Structure formats: C-alpha cells, structure tokens
C-alpha cells in the first residue's frame, strides 16, 4: 500500500519569510544598494563632512558584507561553473584597497573626491562590467536553477545575519579607526 503524504507536516512548514530569489538576483540587488550609497556620497558636498563620513562608513560595512557573502558562499559554489571566479575574487582586493584609501581621506578635501571617483569606477568595473555583464549571464546559463535558488536563500540569510551582527560591526569600526589613525 502506498502511504499518503502527510498533509499535516505540509501545513506545519513555516512559509519562507523572504521571497526566494536566484543568487545572481540577490547579488545584483545588493550591487544596487552599494551603487545607491556611492551616488549619495557623490551628491553630498564637501561642506557636509559629517554626512560624507557616515556614508563612507556605511559603504565600508555594506561592501565588506558583500565581499563576505560572495567569498564564503557564492564563489566557492560557482568555481566549477565559470572560470571567471579567480579574477572576480581578485577584484574584491581592489575594492578593499580603494575602500581603505577612501576611509583614510579627509572628507573635507579634494583627495576624498578623487578617491570616491576611483571607488565608483572600481565598483562599476567589478559589479557591472565583470559580474552583471559577463559572469552572471554565464552562470544563469550553465548553473542549475535549483542550486541558484538554494544559494540565493543562503546568501539572503547570511546577509541578514551579518547585518545584525554586533561583532562584525565592532570589527569594522575598529578597522576604520586604525586605518584613519595611521593615515598620512
């Protein structure tokens, strides 16, 4: 005799709290968050150094979290799908270096503007020219749809946990303080 599916368990299953998305979409949406921060930074004049600094700090947090979720979850899973992972990983280093340069620049100076412009270009290069235009379409063609959705869940969950992590926030604050303290 065939067993009937247990209807009860299905009902008991909690509905997913977040909308299920492909991993690539989760990442593109987070790219938009980063772009928005840069746009707001570009719109903030030199006369508002406090706001510039706060936005740069927020960019620091978000970009680091973006790198973390890609490096911990997305890139290792995609290594067998595309050979472009190694280069994308290296581009993170360029973003981290530029982020450090931006944080070390005084928001009242022209140097901050220069570093911000390079930050904008470096982010566009990684997020748009590399990932959104080349790597993600390739992944969406060749990777398993189920896997992408499952990865998307993991990325969203991890991002949520990182955002509410007080430890990570403290580490970032400490890093920024050290970078600013040693700036010349």
């Amino acid at each position, binding site marked *: 005799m065939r067993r009937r599916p247990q209807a009860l368990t299905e009902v008991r299953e909690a509905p997913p709290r977040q909308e299920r998305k492909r991993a690539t979409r989760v990442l593109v949406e987070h790219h938009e968050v980063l772009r928005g921060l840069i746009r707001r930074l570009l719109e903030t004049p030199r006369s508002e150094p406090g706001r510039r600094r706060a936005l740069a700090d927020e960019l620091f947090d978000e970009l680091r979290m973006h790198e973390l979720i890609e*490096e911990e979850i997305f890139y*290792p899973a995609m*290594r067998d799908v595309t050979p472009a*992972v*190694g*280069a994308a*990983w*290296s*581009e993170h*280093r*360029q973003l*981290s*270096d530029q982020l*450090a*340069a931006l944080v070390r620049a005084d928001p009242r100076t022209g140097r901050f503007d*220069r570093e911000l412009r*390079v930050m904008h*270009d*470096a982010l566009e*290069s*990684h997020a748009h*020219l*590399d990932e959104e235009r080349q790597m993600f379409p390739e992944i969406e063609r060749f990777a398993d749809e189920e896997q992408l959705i499952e990865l998307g869940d993991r990325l969203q969950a991890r991002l949520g946990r990182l955002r509410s992590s007080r430890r990570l926030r403290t580490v970032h604050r400490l*890093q920024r303080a*050290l*970078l600013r303290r*040693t700036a*010349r």
Partner: protein
Amino acid sequence: MAQRALDRLLNAIEGDARLDRPGHRLEQGLAFAENLLGVTGGRARGFLHGVWLGHPLHPVLTDLPIGSWTTALVLDLTGQKRAARAAVGVGLAGALAAAVTGLHDWQHTHDNARRVGMVHGTLNTLAVALYGWSWWQRGRGHHLRGRLAALLGYPVIMAGGFLGGTLVHRHRIGVDQTGGQLDPRHFTPVLAERDLTGDRLHRVRAGDVDVVLVRADGRIHALENACPHLGGPLSQGWLRDGSITCPWHGSQFELRSGESLNGPATAPVPCFQTRVRDGWIEVRRAPKPTSSPPGSALVHQQEVRP
C-alpha cells in the same frame, strides 16, 4: 617516470580547494597590513614587486638563502664551524627578504597558482624554522644539532624552490604575458573620432589585436587591452591621474608610455601610435627602438606623419 610523478603531485596541489580558505584569510590579513602601512598606494608597493628592476624582485632574492645554505652544507662537510654559522645567518636574512617580496607577489594570483604558492610558502617557512633553529643551536655551541637541522632543512628548501620554479615556468607568474605581436604594422582605422568621448575607455579591434583607446591631455592613447601581469582586461579598468588601472590586480600604467607604475605588473603594456585621418582614429604598433641606421627602410617606416 619521475616526470609523471611530479606532474601528478602538482595536479594534486593545484586541485586542492582546501588551500583556498586559509589562503584568502592570509591575503585579507596582508591586505589590511599593507593598507595600514600605506604600502598599497605608496612607493614600497612597486619596489617590492620589482617594477624598478623590470622583472620581479622575489626570484632574485631567493638565490640568497639557497646559495648560502648550499655553502653552509659544504662548510659543514669541511668542518668550518664559524663560517658555516655565518652562511646560515646570511641565508636567513635573505630568506626573510624573499618571504616579504614573495607574499607581496603571491597575493595577486588566482586559483591553481595561488594554491601552489601556498605550499611553496609553507615549505619555505618550515625551512626557515629549521635553519633558524640551526643558527641558534650553533650559537650555543651545539654544532651537531645545528648541522642536523641544516641537513633536514636542505631538501625542504629544494622542494620549495622546485615549486617556485613551477610558479614561473608552469603558471607564468612574474613573466611578461604580452604576446610580443608585431601587428598591426600599418595604420589601421579602428574608431570614428567623434565616438571617442573624453575620460572613458573604449575597447576596439585592430585586426586580430584587442586595443583600448582613451583620450586624455588632448591626445589619443592606444594600449594593448591585456595586462602584462595576468592578462586582465584593461578596458574594464579605470583612469587616475594620467594612468590606467588594471581591474584585476590594480597595476597602474602610464597612458603615454605604457610603463608600469606600481605593480604587480613589472613589464610595460605595449603601446600603439595613433593618428586621425578623415575623421577616423588609426593605430599601428609602436615599433621597438631599432638599431637600424638612420635613413634605412625600417626607420623610414617607423616615422609617424600625423
């Protein structure tokens, strides 16, 4: 047989993804330290990569420990205790310098080369530990222990050296990766001049060659669209103070000459001569300085008539 066994060994190292996590952790630590010390945007960056030398500095320095420790081996055999200790010490100093430059180069590698680099560095660290202990024991008069440690360290540094050679000859790390092509030898139209807007990078084809065009300082610059370090697409990079930056590892190149300013690339990007004819931008390969006498056919060909 030996060749096949070594090949299998290298394949095993290259395919071992377990090396990635510690590798990236190490790189993040290095990145933070370099940013704190101001190495990333400073002069030390290019110095450590060997930009001033025209090729990587690290392989030059590795001769110091290998040479000194080979000398120590011979001096141990001939029983010259003090000289042997001095040779071990010189090797240690060289090994530290090689470690700094090696880490500096390694952090800008990918995938397989990165993993081989991890094992290369681990073996060399082990060798440094053995020779360090050897030096210390010799100083305290325990020459037998010192010799034994050196004897153990020697095959380790040889194995490390072998993997270092693999990185250069198999993975082409530190090698100038430009193809050495000669084309296009004659001016070739690539883009309508009005389509080249200022401060943006344009990727065009000149025959079989991928070229990046940019207008800066009232001039049109044309460079090959591949970084000499690992072949990164320069057209996806960005501009800063008259230089173009490779998006992969941040090497900056002077637009005018293609010279590397900071590394990891130590070789220049090949440049093209440009001119505008009938509203079209034309490029041709900038020839290497020639030893032909003035007035010869080759020199005549190379003169640009704008």
